[in-house]
């Protein structure tokens, strides 16, 4: 029983962290139409940034600043934001497929940098020496996991409320207008490039926050955590859940993470022994089929974007 609950807490924590990431991507893609193909780079920047800033001193690589944890997490978010700012300035003029290719390239470069630059973050061995905050008080057991889950949940809700208010505001209206037609928005006095950059950075900071929490949860991050796989999974969550709808983004995160976990378990249990080697690939095929199926039959996702109508707010 306690084992099941313990597992559920573990599952819900991971899903909640991923849901925060999906919310970040939703701001970029769902609301603004920016095709970020390198989600994992910003997620990774947050994870690496947090662990390097918050960890204990290490020989051989950067880190050990032992910052107060919330500051380390903010630092990780800032790292993701700064990276988004640089990438954004360079790729701002690119649209859709080109932006996707460029950002995908950034993610691959990020992974390779982390894998090879040992002086920076330990190379392939990853960042060691990070202690989870409040470990002394809460220990390493179930209590800690519950406390951590609640913290993540509160952060998820905060991010959700922040984004809900943001997209319901004139800023959200601007983002949608940029998504729909930049030239028309420009003819109405708006500056698409500034708005695109702002949305890209804001979304990336949220991705960095998710990455920072992810790194904290495992007290470790290595290049294996920033593979393109994760970009693919986060996109699947958004597409299935419903791009442009924050609740859809969260729903999609839990659904796809559940399906991913369940399919892994089912394959390892029921697939023939000789196929066991390929279960990882089978999971990808399954998720791929789900994405293609969604795009063909329900491209708006399970919880589609809602139209903002005049009644909302007018009765305040």
């Amino acid at each position, binding site marked *: 029983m306690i084992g099941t609950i313990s597992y559920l807490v573990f599952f819900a924590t991971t899903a909640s962290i991923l849901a925060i990431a999906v919310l970040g991507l939703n701001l970029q893609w769902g609301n603004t139409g920016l095709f970020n193909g390198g989600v994992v780079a910003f997620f990774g920047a947050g994870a690496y940034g947090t662990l390097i800033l918050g960890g204990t001193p290490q020989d051989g690589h950067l880190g050990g600043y032992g910052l107060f944890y919330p500051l380390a997490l903010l630092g990780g978010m800032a790292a993701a934001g700064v990276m988004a700012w640089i990438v954004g300035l360079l790729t701002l003029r690119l649209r859709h497929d080109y932006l996707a290719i460029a950002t995908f390239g950034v993610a691959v470069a990020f992974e390779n940098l982390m894998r090879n630059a040992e002086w920076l973050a330990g190379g392939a061995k990853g960042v060691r020496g990070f202690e989870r905050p409040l470990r002394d008080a809460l220990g390493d057991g179930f209590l800690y996991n519950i406390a951590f889950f609640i913290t993540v949940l509160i952060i998820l809700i905060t991010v959700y409320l922040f984004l809900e208010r943001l997209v319901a505001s*004139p800023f959200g209206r601007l983002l949608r207008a940029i998504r729909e037609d930049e030239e028309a928005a420009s*003819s109405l006095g708006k500056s698409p490039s500034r708005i695109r950059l702002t949305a890209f950075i804001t979304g990336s900071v949220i991705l960095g926050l998710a990455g920072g929490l992810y790194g904290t949860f495992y007290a470790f991050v290595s290049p294996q955590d920033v593979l393109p796989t994760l970009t693919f999974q986060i996109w699947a969550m958004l597409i299935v859940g419903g791009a442009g709808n924050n609740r859809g983004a969260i729903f999609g995160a839990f659904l796809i993470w559940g399906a991913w976990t369940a399919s892994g378990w089912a394959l390892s249990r029921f697939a023939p022994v000789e196929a066991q080697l390929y279960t990882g690939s089978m999971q990808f095929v399954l998720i791929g089929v789900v994405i293609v199926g969604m795009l063909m039959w329900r491209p708006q996702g399970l919880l589609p974007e809602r*139209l903002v109508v005049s009644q909302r707010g007018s009765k305040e």
Partner: protein
Amino acid sequence: MAETVLSTHRLSRSFGPFKAVDGVSLEIARGTITGLIGPNGAGKSTFFNLLTGALAPDAGTVTLAGQDITGLPPSRLFELGMGRTFQIPRPFARMSVLENVMLAPTGQVGETVWGPFLSRKQMRDQERQIRDKAMEVLEFVTLGALADHPAGKISGGQMKLLELARVLMGDPALILLDEPAAGVNPVLTETLIGKIEELNRQGTTFVIIEHDMDLVMRHCDPIIALSEGRIVFQGSADEAMTDAGLLDAYLGTPLHA
């Protein structure tokens, strides 16, 4: 002599060896409805794009109310009081008609990431004002009942009215309309023209590119004709009817028509 609101001086733009607009100088007087006509390929759209900042000229200047606006981005021109619509309507399709219109006013405090949190009260007050004005403008262009419809689902003619409504939110002194009657049913065209004339009586200046000669002859004065990138006629509708050069421009180049 009426005050000049917009003028161009020797405005030129080429695409490779092809001179789309070739040294056009003109003056638009405040309070007029100017019709810009010419056969296909005459350079009307290029000229329009030069005026609205969508294209940069190779040479020449554009002046709006005494200020040199050559090469300024479209977003600045809207702030300076010049609005435009598009030949093929460009609604924000997956936004409501009302949202389309509410987007337009410049200087909204809620248009930044922090505005909705740090200036909540101011933003709400502004939103209320903008919403009221947007509804007024939508009623004016006869789209009030469609406020909550997705803008991508209304008819082509209604989209043209919506574009006019969006532009009106900026209280522009000058509005450039790119083929407002193209693809619009006659009833809506009459509505649109009626609104244009009403706004004109209130002081708004219009420049209209239009292929519907009947409409241009009835509602525009003066009329300016372009052919092969140059002005070939400038005058009233009555003069246009009998102008040999204008007839020549239309009938003499059948390959372009």
